[in-house]
């Protein structure tokens, strides 16, 4: 069976131990966490987690069941299996911008619709938002110019609503 990335959308009770329980489940059972993103939902008693993990089908099945078994977990959806979904991630990239390269960095920002959010004499800090493929592309293109630092949010995802009636 082949390993595949899965994006899980998890609703949990907004209680102090809940996140520790989920993190402990992954470390204790040897599952991978590629990224994890947590925030409150419209209902303040529930938190939403987007969790990217990888494994073969049996492992993913176990991960989902084990998550559901936690008393604090309200709902788990395997977004990857649920059909189409939108995914977004944001990165802040501090890139070297000397005289010769400043113009090139700005051109690239333009092409990828990135924002420059901080400027110093020798650096630009750029905000990129999009699917992971786009972030990856921007990072690859900026690498030769010289990336000083990157901070990424981790992926968030949402199922697409069905079109039509």
């Amino acid at each position: 069976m082949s390993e595949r990335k899965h994006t899980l959308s998890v609703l949990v009770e907004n209680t102090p131990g809940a996140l520790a329980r989920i993190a402990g489940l992954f470390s204790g059972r040897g599952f991978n966490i590629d990224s994890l993103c947590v925030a409150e939902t419209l209902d303040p008693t529930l938190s939403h987690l987007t969790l990217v993990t990888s494994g073969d089908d049996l492992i993913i099945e176990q991960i989902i069941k084990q998550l559901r078994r936690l008393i604090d977990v309200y709902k788990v959806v395997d977004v990857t299996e649920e059909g189409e979904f939108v995914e977004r991630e944001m990165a802040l990239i501090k890139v070297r911008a000397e005289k010769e390269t400043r113009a090139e960095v700005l051109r690239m920002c333009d092409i990828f619709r990135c924002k420059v959010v901080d400027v110093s004499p020798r650096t630009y800090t750029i905000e990129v938002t999009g699917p992971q493929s786009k972030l990856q592309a921007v990072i690859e293109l900026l690498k030769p110019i010289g990336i000083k630092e990157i901070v990424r949010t981790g992926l968030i995802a949402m199922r697409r609503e069905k079109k039509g009636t």
Partner: protein
Amino acid sequence: MTGAQIIVEALKREGVEVIFGYPGGAVIDIYDELYRTPEIKHILVRHEQGAAHAADGYARSTGKVGVCLVTSGPGATNTVTGIATAYMDSIPVVIFTGQVPTKLIGNDAFQEVDITGITRPCTKHNFLVKRTEDLPKILRAAFHIARTGRPGPVLVDLPKDVQQGKAEFYWPEEVRLRSYQPVYDPHPRQVEKAYRMLESCTRPVVLVGGGVISSGAHEEICELAERLHLPVTMTLMGLGGFPGTHPQSLGMLGMHGTYYANMAVANSDLILAVGARFDDRVTGKVDAFAPMAKIIHIDIDPTSIQKNVRVDVPIVGDCKRSLERLLTVIKEVARPEKIWREQFKDWWEQIEIWKKRYPLSYKQEGDYIKPQFVIEKLYELTRDRAQSGQIVISTEVGQNQMWTAQFYKFDRPRTLITSGGLGTMGFGFPAAIGAQMGNPDKLVVDIAGDGSIQMNIQEMATAMEQGLPIKVIILNNGYLGMVRQWQELFYQRRYSAVKFQVIPDFVKLAEAYGALGLRATRPEEVEPVLKQALESDRLTLVDIHIAPEEGVFPMVPAGRATTEMILV
């Protein structure tokens, strides 16, 4: 009411009759309340591990929730082995731990420990109570979570200021937890699928696990097996879930299972597993486990299904309700018994051949007492109680546990209590204390090893104090026998650290505690000594010197296929 009063009132509402505990600064307020509450009996143990195991033994033997109360810090950490033991075997216990005042939490205060953090992976759930007014809701939820679904231990951490604070008492009528809703009823289509597989198989085996006992499905299993004429094997935790003396019983399977149970499973074309989780001690090498079999798996916990072995028909639900449903289908279809019998005739013939080829056996000869002989004698002397369910046998861990599982015949549920999943030495004796507290009229026997019994020997004082007439039978081989057996078989007899240079005189030790101590060193002494012990009306410790290098057989070496058994 104060928090402590709320806690004690909640215990009463939950019907708690007995709690096992040990006091300390962080629970002194609760103890002060218990002082005024004669309805709840508090058993003062000698070590908090003993309290946790006793609560567990109480739960295993009665089916009720066991309760344990300890102080913060070392009191709490001392219960961890007991909690993990209960967790691995899905036993409903609620553990109350004291905690430093909320304002001091995180400050490394005196006797502070993050016990909810420590026990997160070995509890079904745990709570740190932050406000006195949350107590009723949380206590209600704790008991509910412990006893419903797949049962398990729940820990409630109680900061001192929460115990001392004041709040209105209320008792929620029912517990509603939106994120916790165990599924009890099986999917009817899955049950029908299971039935069709039974109709079309030729070499079936029913595999009974601990879930049959915790859900009370022993009668349904028996009815199913008898109607369809199915052979039945049990895991260690499933012993007693189906009568060991039943002609259709193949005994225990797995690492120290019977030859015929392992052969039947290995050659079967259909396994109906009920409340069993396919632990590695049962499957051996997973890839070689029952290669021709389709598997129907009934379990209340979806994570148990498809975890270790591939399952063809998963049925998520309570074992009892799922079997009831299956029996309904069977009765509706009303296939004549003769046809079932005919269908499995060749299979039974084959099983009988295996049974005759290698029955469980040993030879009692020479001057040494064979441990199997002791268990058989004990069974003979207690057969009536075993058949009527008027006995509880607990075991320690190691060879003593396996000989008990092999040679005692457990006919009734909750007559064997043993640490299966965690394999905790030192479990049996404190668990026996819990069992005797919950079943004052039953005969309670702990079958022990000379190593294990020393792990919680201090509880002799607890048993004496409570006047519990428990019988402890030490199969004294002078070794950590099970480890020695592995060294003998797989490490060329390099007996590293398995022989104690000093073993206490157990008879004198018993006497020091005020108990009766007896000893047998020759085969002919076994029966009279056992008789004397069984007739004794007080705590009795029997030191039986057995053949020091006797092994447990059959044995499937760890990681090997279950057909690769070492027979005697």
